[in-house]
């Protein structure tokens, strides 16, 4: 697992599928080959009032780590990440009386997955409870595990095919962790960050499905 950068790509006046199509053509023109599809999803649960002090659990799946369930517990100022096996989903079902999922919050990013050299590029269409919200581009540089070492290189790569829409700074979540060894949980955190932003967006303004 290498360093991964997640960035939003503006759709401007294109539809979601048109944007994915434009980006697919660009990355293919650079020599990438499509290697299947990917999916990242997120469900958010809130603790029942009788548990007192409210806690929020985000449960995420990433098709890149199909046997793992990632969960992030937010309680007050603390966030506790957890990587578990698939049984965690069943556990959450058992606890449905304590933790209930908010309605209309199921977030997903899915789309084509490309490989180009040592890079892995994923073009995700983001939907929240099936409503189109935007485009997330994920780029992973697999040989490198420390963000600070390859950030400039990845920025150059991203700007190479996203143009001016490419990021100029590391994702907010990574900024304090540039020196640390990158782990799959870091990718999950970045997705959660974007999903949270999409959820706060007023429904579908300026976004055509």
């Amino acid at each position, binding site marked *: 697992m290498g360093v991964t950068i997640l960035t939003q790509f503006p759709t401007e006046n294109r539809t979601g599928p048109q944007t994915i199509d434009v980006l697919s053509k660009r990355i293919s023109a650079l020599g990438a080959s499509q290697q299947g599809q990917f999916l990242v999803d997120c469900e958010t649960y809130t603790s029942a009032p009788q548990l007192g002090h409210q806690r929020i659990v985000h449960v995420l799946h990433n098709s890149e780590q199909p046997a793992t369930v990632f969960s992030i517990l937010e309680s007050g100022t603390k966030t506790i990440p957890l990587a578990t096996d698939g049984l965690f989903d069943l556990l959450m079902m058992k606890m449905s009386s304590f933790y209930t999922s908010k309605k209309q919050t199921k977030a997903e990013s899915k789309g084509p997955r490309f490989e*180009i050299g*040592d890079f892995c590029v994923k073009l995700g269409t983001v939907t929240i409870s099936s409503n189109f919200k935007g485009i997330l581009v994920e780029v992973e540089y697999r040989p490198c*595990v420390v963000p600070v070492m*390859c950030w400039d290189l990845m920025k*150059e*790569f991203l700007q*190479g095919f996203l143009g001016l829409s490419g990021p100029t700074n590391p994702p907010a979540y990574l900024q304090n962790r540039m020196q640390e060894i990158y782990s799959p949980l870091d990718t999950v955190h970045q997705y959660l960050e974007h999903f949270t932003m999409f959820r706060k967006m007023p429904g579908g303004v300026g976004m055509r499905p």
Partner: protein
Amino acid sequence: MERDLAQLNVALNSVKVLRSNVRSVFESVGNGLRADHGDDGKENKYIIELQELLTTVNNNLRDVENAVASLTPPPGAFSLGNTTYLAQETTQERQALYGQLVNSYKWTDKIREYSALAGNILQTNSFNKTYKTLSTTKRRKTQTSNHNVSPEVIENLITGIDRLFPDVTITTNRPFVPNPVVQASLGRVLKSIIGFKGLMIEWVVVKAHAEASDQWSDSRYKVFQKVTENCHAAMCHFHSPMMPDLAVRSFMHWFHSYNTLFSAPCKRCGNHIHNNLPATWRDLRTLEPYHEECK
């Protein structure tokens, strides 16, 4: 020598011809009168035939004598060394040994000749481009053998290198004593598995930290495959049979410059990426980073 051999061959050939013709004479004498001599004057015909055969033998004999006269006799008895005892071998299957012995002698002779030629050519086209110059006093300390070095010497060399670069971590294991296989980790960037043959580097593989530490499989990442290739080039470049420890140290010095593999842009084009790879080449002298295509 060449002429002597030719003459010897001529002489042997004429002996062969003589023997074959003498045999015809005896055959003719042994058979006596034959049906193909006919009835009329068969004795005469027979005598003429015999005379012709004897004349041929006479001529052949003269040829042999001429050929032998032109040979120069060897100065003394041949000394065959221990091989003379082979002649006393009585068992059937071992009598063929002499032939094999001569064959292997010819081979070693050829090897000597070719290696002498190769040595001459290599001396005039020196490919030793190690940039460090040593004082003459140090130069005298050459090792007599680089293949068969005591493990302590290699151990010292490796620990010396380990101390030289703080961000290189070296771990050694010896599957085949005394040739160690060294794993050199370069910070959090990469690791390399280096196989030694005595004091000389014989094999290098570069991989990601997460990959298996065996010598035999390549990295699955293009960037490390490219760096492995470049390490092989550098390994040959720094190779110096006369100063193997210097070669290893120069190689490690160069290898250490890969600690900026992902972070340093290419010196020529200023970019990080070319063909989806970072600058995978390091100049052998200046250690500056270059793309494969920009060096």
